């Protein structure tokens, strides 16, 4: 459709930059990850960022943006910005600091790391994962240079899905970025949220366009989020039971012969073993687990099985459940046996573009079995490492080792752009670990909830205050590269995350691995495959777009034999076929076929808890205005969601004397929070939905912050961290499902 109105377009151009005294500087956003950042046009007046708009030249966002990006000038100039490095002067947890210089801060950190490397070995250092943005490669490089394997990966997003799809069909991104919306007849959005996640990046528009073309939309999630409001069928599943639904759908599709016989016999391994295995997982069996009527499950299975072409967008719900590896493999099997793998309208393996791939920053060639064996708490069992991000320990287990000393205690944790106090489960235990931890470094642009326990705090630039890195797709699937341009001068005594790791590398004596601290050389090294320097790239203000390669379907010979990133380089799939029956899992003592594993607490797995905790509790991964533990201090976002909340069905609330907007106590077997009850007619009446990441106040709106533990609004204190029940044994996924009771605050709490 035309978006231009000639007169206004002319007016816009004639109301030129001169008239307003503004200068336009293109750059790209880094507020979210792991996708590429959106292109931004930034308008600067008197050295201040005054206005932002989407960059039309960027193929990522085509001139569109999201609320978070539009609010980012308030974020940039927030009074909570960290302006200079700090060192602790009070007790851990007190939050008393004094100002030090960048160089002094680095000396303190380097001194401690050298001392501990000598005393405890280099593996005593762990660095926790932020939202995946390019700077993570720099600290993974630092870890390798230092000799530690302990990249503490958070395991709340994407890697679990990538693992399941990789070891089922050698296509890690298949469930996340593999839907062929333009040619499909049926889209299944499953535990995903294309509205709040990557809003301007195309998925949402492609789904809406497909709907208008006539494709049907099924949305599977416990509450009617905006995408479900547009669905032809909303499937209000009970949280954490997606794996049970997927198994029951396989049952229907197999028993009603809705599968693709030719594809299954040519390209799948172990279908014959699936048939008897799946018999017990009937829709009737799944009904009490999922809370969905058996006939609804049959209907969904038949719609998916009978569609000429259907695609599944599998979301974050699959990453945060103890059933993760099973559930993802079951979805992979659904895609494969229905003949929707790499076919028009199905889940496809995307084509690379003609763009070269930048030289990697991390150092995978230096991984050794010896290094791998030193992992403090492997995210995946050693036999499946390294995976696509390298070798990793589980985020939670790095912290837990501080308390248990098993197999050895981590002595230094660096948290760059991540807040262990609100992001992983078991916040009470996390706080204990931070108290006991010998040395803790926080790196961020803003005050964080974990900062009070820090020994050193390193402030870093926002995306507006530095002139690097360049943006290119991680892993090569994409066709745009752009150099970051500095929009304003830094507001304090700090540098970028990238420069921090280079500087620390030099201080530690690893200068040869860190371009002797020269960021320009570091950028130029990565760009060698492009045959240009950062300066030459910068000469293209909005970057360079390369030709995409035309789509080729049914590339089975090519991708089903892909090598895995393991040290051996062995292929993901020993048979070169879709692993319905997974011999790699079997050899290492895991279920070769997907099974159902119930959450640690649920109506069917712990019915004895229902008398005291009758409701299922869950939290959604993101929202239209917040980004995990960040952005709650930004006024124009905070006023949209001013207070921490739960969504509750009006009948469920009224039965407890709870009015719309009342403050309530939500109590699980593990802790309690105090939040606002919002009536939500589109939620399962047995389920309560909340949002993680609440702790921060917003001074401009006079809104308070909230305690991290009991009585605050941090949902992560509600969940089980039982070592036997709360971890997927293959991918260490931790559940975000529990049972709770809700009561009006003020009466008894």
């Amino acid at each position: 459709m035309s978006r231009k109105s000639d007169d206004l377009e002319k007016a816009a151009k004639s109301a030129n930059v001169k008239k307003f005294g503004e200068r336009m500087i293109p750059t790209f956003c880094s507020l979210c990850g792991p996708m590429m950042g959106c292109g931004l046009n930034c308008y600067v007046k008197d050295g201040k960022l005054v206005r932002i708009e989407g960059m039309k030249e960027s193929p990522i966002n085509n001139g569109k943006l999201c609320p978070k990006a539009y609010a980012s000038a308030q974020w940039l100039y927030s009074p909570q910005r960290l302006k200079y490095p700090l060192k602790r002067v009070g007790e851990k947890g007190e939050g008393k600091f004094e100002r030090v210089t960048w160089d002094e801060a680095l000396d303190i950190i380097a001194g401690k790391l050298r001392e501990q490397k000598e005393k405890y070995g280099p593996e005593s250092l762990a660095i926790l994962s932020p939202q995946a943005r390019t700077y993570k490669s720099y600290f993974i490089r630092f870890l390798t240079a230092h000799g530690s394997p302990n990249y503490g990966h958070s395991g709340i997003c994407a890697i679990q899905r990538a693992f399941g799809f990789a070891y089922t069909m050698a296509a890690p991104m298949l469930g996340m970025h593999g839907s062929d919306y333009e040619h499909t007849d049926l889209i299944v959005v499953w535990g995903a949220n294309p509205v709040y996640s990557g809003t301007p990046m195309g998925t949402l528009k492609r789904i809406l366009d497909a709907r208008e073309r006539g494709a049907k939309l099924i949305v599977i999630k416990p509450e009617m989020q905006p995408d479900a409001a547009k669905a032809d069928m909303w499937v209000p599943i009970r949280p954490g039971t997606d794996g049970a639904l997927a198994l029951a759908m396989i049952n229907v599709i197999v028993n009603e012969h809705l599968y693709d016989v030719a594809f299954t016999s040519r390209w799948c391994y172990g279908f014959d073993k699936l048939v008897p295995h799946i018999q017990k997982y009937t829709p009737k069996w799944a009904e009490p687990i999922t809370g969905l009527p058996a006939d609804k499950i049959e209907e969904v299975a038949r719609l998916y099985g009978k569609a000429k072409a259907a695609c599944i967008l599998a979301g974050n719900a699959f990453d945060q459940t103890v059933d993760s590896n099973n559930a993802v493999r079951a979805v992979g099997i659904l895609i494969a046996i229905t003949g929707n793998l790499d076919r028009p309208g199905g889940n496809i393996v995307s084509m690379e573009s003609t763009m070269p791939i930048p030289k990697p920053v991390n150092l995978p060639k230096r991984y050794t079995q010896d290094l791998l064996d030193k992992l403090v708490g492997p995210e995946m069992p050693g036999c499946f490492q390294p995976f696509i991000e390298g070798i990793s320990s589980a985020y939670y287990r790095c912290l837990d080792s501080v308390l248990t000393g098993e197999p050895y205690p981590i002595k230094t944790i660096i948290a760059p752009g991540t807040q262990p106090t609100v992001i992983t489960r078991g916040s009470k235990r996390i706080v204990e670990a931070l108290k006991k931890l010998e040395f803790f470094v926080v790196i961020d642009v803003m005050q964080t909830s974990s900062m009070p326990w820090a020994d050193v705090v390193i402030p870093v630039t926002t995306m507006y205050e530095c002139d690097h890195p360049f943006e290119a797709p991680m892993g090569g699937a994409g066709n745009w590269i752009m150099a970051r341009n500095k929009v304003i001068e830094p507001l304090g005594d700090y540098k970028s995350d990238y420069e921090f790791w280079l500087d620390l590398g030099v201080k530690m004596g690893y200068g040869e691995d860190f371009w002797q601290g020269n960021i320009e050389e570091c950028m130029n090294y990565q760009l060698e495959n492009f045959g240009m320097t950062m300066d030459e790239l910068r000469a293209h203000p909005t970057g360079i777009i390369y030709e995409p390669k035309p789509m080729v379907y049914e590339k089975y010979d090519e991708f089903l034999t892909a090598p895995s990133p393991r040290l051996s380089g062995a292929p993901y799939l020993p048979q070169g076929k879709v692993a319905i029956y997974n011999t790699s899992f079997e050899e290492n003592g895991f279920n070769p076929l997907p099974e159902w594993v119930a959450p640690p607490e649920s109506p069917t797995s712990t019915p004895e808890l229902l008398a005291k905790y009758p409701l299922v509790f869950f939290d959604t991964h993101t929202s239209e205005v917040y980004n995990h533990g960040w952005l709650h201090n930004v006024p124009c976002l905070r006023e949209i969601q001013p207070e921490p909340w739960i969504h509750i069905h009006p009948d469920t609330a009224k039965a407890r004397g709870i009015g719309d907007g009342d403050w309530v106590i939500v109590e699980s077997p593990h802790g309690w929070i105090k939040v606002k009850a919002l009536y939500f007619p589109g939620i399962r009446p047995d389920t309560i939905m909340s949002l993680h990441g609440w702790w921060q106040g917003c001074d401009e709106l006079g809104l308070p912050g909230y305690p991290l533990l009991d009585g605050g609004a941090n949902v992560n204190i509600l969940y089980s961290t039982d070592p036997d029940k709360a971890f997927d044994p293959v991918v260490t996924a931790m559940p975000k499902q529990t049972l709770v009771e809700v009561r009006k605050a003020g009466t008894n709490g």
Partner: protein
Amino acid sequence: MSKQYGFYYDASRCIQCRTCEVACKSTHDIEPGVKWRRVIEIWSGEYPNVTRTFFSLACMHCEKPACAAVCPTGAIIKRVEDGIVVVDRDKCNGCQDCFSACPYGVPQFGVDGILQKCDFCIETGREPACAVSCPAEALNFGTLDELLEMKTGKTTRRMGGTTEPSIVIVS
């Protein structure tokens, strides 16, 4: 009147992502508590057969603006050249009669008590930020003639109402 600018709104594509709302606030640096554009929702039905519909709401630059008709100081002006309804904030006395008159609850009052509302981004000299930013392409802008002629593959019409809102909707 030579021409009339207005908005196009397709509720079937609006997903309450709030981009229009925050784009507006950020572009005009609007104070807390005041929204020139906001996305509201309407629920109907009973679980599980519920529906949830969204509406992105701002000044509709009506052809017969009720706000202007009741304004005692002549602070609300309907521009002859483009039909955009603007506020002369020096003339506004903060009586809020416009708020009572507007059928859509559009007029906003901040700390200074003076009327503020959507000016179609004419102050910024750019296209309306809400419409150009919409990731769902639910919102658009143009002259009413352009919007009615726009090829969307859908049946569109002027929104009804006594004030004749300058809005083209999908019917």
